């Protein structure tokens, strides 16, 4: 990093100018134990999402490692069927609901979107904070369940009737269903925050056709969340109602239907895959220009692809149900749809390749992870083409082939870009660079381990090993392949340990990053690392798709926002023209208190329907506490200082 020594500054921003100190005072977030629960700044919330989701990633990984140990040998005794079923259900649910979406969409989204937009905070910061607490509540619920032998055990999609009242006694499936409620309310809240931030808080000049692809993708994902997540909330609520108050949605004896569950679930479940994968492509599209030193090729094509994926993602859900015996005609239709959705992803791939050809690749660590992404995700995408074909799906559906496929897609489409993104943005978050040598070790260990474990699973699937079996007979000839698959776990574990060591080491002793260590072009690099709570000393204006690269020598800054109250600029959705100024809200304990009352109501409703009428008044009280106007709008400067320095 010697080349950018001129850019390096201390990671802690010490405001020097008068305006900076006033801004720092106005946007100050409280500290201390209770301050932690009052903080509503998006960098804090985004970091929390990332850290929490990463911890869940580690926990889910531990479960996976134990399951692999169980499968190493035929008729192994590491786990019994009961524990194994809980392990794989909690593993899947954790990775999807507590890691992938919170990390890729909420974590990166909440942290980055306001910075890339060039605004001071996310829209509805209290809602964002509330969403985080609910996400945490959902995660704790699922894991406390596992630790108290109440771990969900009907698979991460909890098909009925198996998860219904007749076949899963006790509260295991209820814990799962309520975890869904927690995490989906959280994702929906965040989606509103992110969509509104992107639509109304972009820096002046960042018109729709200059919006970085990251923002486009986050916008599309927000809308996908808004249309997809209600489906899973509806279906998990139906499951809860069936289990708790004896509704008959899924009871075939009295007009209910088991396939209704599958339709509703996958109407959410397939868009969910794209909700997980699109943030990955967002990271790729953000990083490729930086490390090829070239504007991305085919901006419009990529944006159109992303939007098309958003729409098509809702039209392919039945391909999870080909083996249910649906009519040939509709199977063909959904095969066609599933193949069509390959095209937008392929288009993005080709555009990245074109960018790589036109640019000059820099051998930096995040780019290495992007290579990993290209390799791994391509395999996952192509095995997806195989699965889209109905007859092939009839054979390999619900086998280890599918397990291999979706790990290639999800680890390839989310975890590899995540690590690329973490190595890229951690300097912004902590102010210090990550160690590149350790990063290379991390990559190669993870890449080798991943392929050992999951590529082998393709063969296991073709050779008839169904998924979700806790053991198998020695005469099935699956032993040797399973040993290979388990051996990869050792590599991946080592890789993750290397990453953790690297993170904690670099956080303390890493090279100082400076504002823009990668010489990147988007707005998050126009401020200090880590960013101050007011994000930008002067709000920027934008002149091109890569704001910093395309800036004119005297690119204008925004003046006229008050620095004595937390004011943000609201711009027009399309052209990003300034429309009005809005005073945003400051730190508050109420989102946390609300999340407590809401959580208590949700958890209570696992056990009795009366929890809802009894819990509702408390929810209302905390909501009123949250939303009741304080002070006058707009406040005088003295009042503002009074409010925010003692609040």
């Amino acid at each position, binding site marked *: 990093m010697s*080349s950018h020594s001129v850019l390096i500054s201390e990671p802690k921003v010490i405001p020097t100018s008068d305006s900076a100190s006033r801004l720092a005072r106005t946007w100050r977030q409280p500290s201390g134990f209770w301050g932690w629960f009052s903080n509503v700044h998006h960098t804090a919330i985004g970091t929390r999402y990332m850290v929490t989701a990463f911890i869940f990633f580690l926990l889910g990984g531990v479960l996976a490692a134990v399951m692999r140990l169980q499968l190493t040998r035929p008729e192994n005794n590491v786990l019994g*069927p*009961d524990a194994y*079923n809980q392990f794989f259900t909690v593993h899947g649910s954790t990775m999807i609901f507590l890691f992938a979406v919170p990390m890729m969409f909420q974590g990166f989204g909440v942290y980055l979107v306001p910075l890339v937009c060039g605004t001071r905070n996310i829209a509805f910061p209290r809602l964002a904070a509330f969403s985080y607490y609910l996400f945490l509540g959902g995660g704790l619920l699922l894991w406390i369940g596992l630790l108290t032998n109440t771990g969900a055990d009907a698979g991460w999609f909890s098909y009925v*009737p*198996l998860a219904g009242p*007749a*076949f899963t006694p006790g509260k295991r499936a209820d814990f799962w269903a309520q975890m869904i409620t927690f995490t989906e309310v959280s994702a929906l809240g965040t989606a509103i925050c992110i969509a509104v931030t992107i639509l109304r808080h972009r820096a002046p000049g960042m018109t729709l056709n200059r919006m970085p692809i990251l923002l486009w993708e986050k916008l599309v994902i927000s809308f996908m969340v808004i249309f997809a997540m209600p489906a899973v909330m509806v279906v998990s609520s139906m499951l809860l109602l069936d289990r708790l108050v004896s509704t008959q949605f899924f009871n075939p004896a009295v007009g209910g239907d*088991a396939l209704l569950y599958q339709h509703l679930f996958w109407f959410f479940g397939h868009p969910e895959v794209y909700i997980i994968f699109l943030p990955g492509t967002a990271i790729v599209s953000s990083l490729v220009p930086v490390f090829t*030193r*070239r504007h991305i*090729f*085919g901006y419009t094509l990529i944006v159109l692809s992303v939007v098309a994926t958003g729409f098509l993602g809702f039209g392919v859900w039945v391909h999870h149900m080909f*083996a*249910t*015996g649906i009519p*040939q005609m509709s199977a*063909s239709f959904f*095969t*066609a749809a599933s*193949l*069509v959705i390959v*095209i937008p992803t392929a*288009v993005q791939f080709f555009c990245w*390749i*074109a960018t790589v*050809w*036109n*640019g*000059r690749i*820099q*051998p930096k660590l995040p780019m290495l992870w992007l*290579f990993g992404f*290209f390799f791994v995700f*391509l*395999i996952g995408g*192509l*095995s997806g*083409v*195989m699965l889209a*074909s*109905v*007859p*092939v799906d*009839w*054979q*390999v*559906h*619900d086998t280890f082939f599918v397990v291999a496929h979706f790990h290639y897609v999800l680890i390839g489409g989310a975890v590899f870009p995540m690590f690329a993104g973490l190595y890229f943005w951690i300097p912004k978050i902590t102010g210090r660079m990550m160690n590149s040598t350790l990063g290379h070790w991390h990559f190669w260990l993870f890449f080798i381990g991943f392929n050992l474990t999951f590529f082998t699973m393709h063969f296991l699937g*073709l*050779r*008839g090993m*169904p998924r*979700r*079996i806790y*053991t198998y007979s020695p*005469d*099935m000839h699956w*032993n*040797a392949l399973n040993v290979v698959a388990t051996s990869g776990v050792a590599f991946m574990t080592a890789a993750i340990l290397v990453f953790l060591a690297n993170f904690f080491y670099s956080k303390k002793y890493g090279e100082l990053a400076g504002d823009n260590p990668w010489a990147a072009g988007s707005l998050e690099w126009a401020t200090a690392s880590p960013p101050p709570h007011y994000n930008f000393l002067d709000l920027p204006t934008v002149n091109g798709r890569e704001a910093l690269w395309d800036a004119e020598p005297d690119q204008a800054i925004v003046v006229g926002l008050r620095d004595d109250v937390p004011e943000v600029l609201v711009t027009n959705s399309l052209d990003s023209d300034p429309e009005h100024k809005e005073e945003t809200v400051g730190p508050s304990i109420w989102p946390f208190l609300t999340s407590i009352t809401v959580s208590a109501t949700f958890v209570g409703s696992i056990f009795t329907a009366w929890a809802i009428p009894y819990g509702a008044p408390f929810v209302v009280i905390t909501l009123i506490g949250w939303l009741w106007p304080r002070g006058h709008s707009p406040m005088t400067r003295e009042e503002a200082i009074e409010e925010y320095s003692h609040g």
Partner: protein
Amino acid sequence: MFTLSRIGGLSHLLAIYQASPLNPGRHSTLNPVAPQAGNIEWLYWVIFWICFGAFVITILVFFTGAARKYVRQATPLPPIKEHPADGIAAWFVGGAITVTVLSLFAVLFMSIITGKKVEGATAERNAVTIQVTGHQWWWEATYPNWQANLTVTTANEFHVPVGKKVVVLTNSNDVIHSFWAPNITGKRDLIPGYSSAFSFEVDKPGIYHGQCAEFCGLQHAHMGFSVVAEPEDQFAAWQNQQVAPAREPTTAEEIRGRTVFLTHACVMCHTIRGTDAGSRVGPDLTHMGSRRMIAAETLPNTRGALAGWILDPQRIKPGSRMTPNPMRPDDLQDLITYLESLQ
């Protein structure tokens, strides 16, 4: 010494072969014995090679592009290109999209054709029909006949004639299961409240393994079945044998064994036609001595395995619906003698 090391080497080779993709395995999509699985295997390989080609080309193009302009030392940073040569790139992207779309069309077309072939007609007059009902965690098979006394009921072992069309009607008694014998055809879910039909015909005589492929609870792993494909005359003989009521016990042990059966918990769940035992909760045992395996393909049908299974099934299949049956050793021996005699 020489021989030993050679054997050791051979066994290693064998292990390597068994692990390698070359070995199709006994329960495998790549070792078809029926036209249905054969068609799917063909389709699989066609799509596989298309995808393999796509993978190789994409990776080659990508890494060539990356290597071509690779900057070893990034100081000073290369300037940001303002107006790169986008013309070639546009041709590349356009061409690549065209190839992708055409390949996808080919895949779609072949999938639909193969799907039609595999699904076939299920309303054939001359077919053998099997009604398969999924239970937690075993398979019930009925060969329906308009004469009730010619209906065959058995469990976990489906006999089919070679070369003749077999229509499977599916149903489930509790949760969703999935009928899958990969050497024969693709899987089909058994969904409570739905019944569906599919058909296949096995070309090669043999015993083929199958397994439940939709997660169905605690013993999903031990819900196997076998398809015994045999020449038509053997099949007919089997059918005749299965239609008959249970063989009358002849020896003293067998008679005592039947008494043990009828006075213990067995009778609460199992049927032996020709006796008072008529419960339909567990598998029909009228001809259980003729089956190869017990406990849904979990154990071989031997005296020892049977004894272990009757005494403590929860150790073998934890969570299974079969209850432990503590009994006196002589009772157990006689019971097993009787059960084994039910050919």
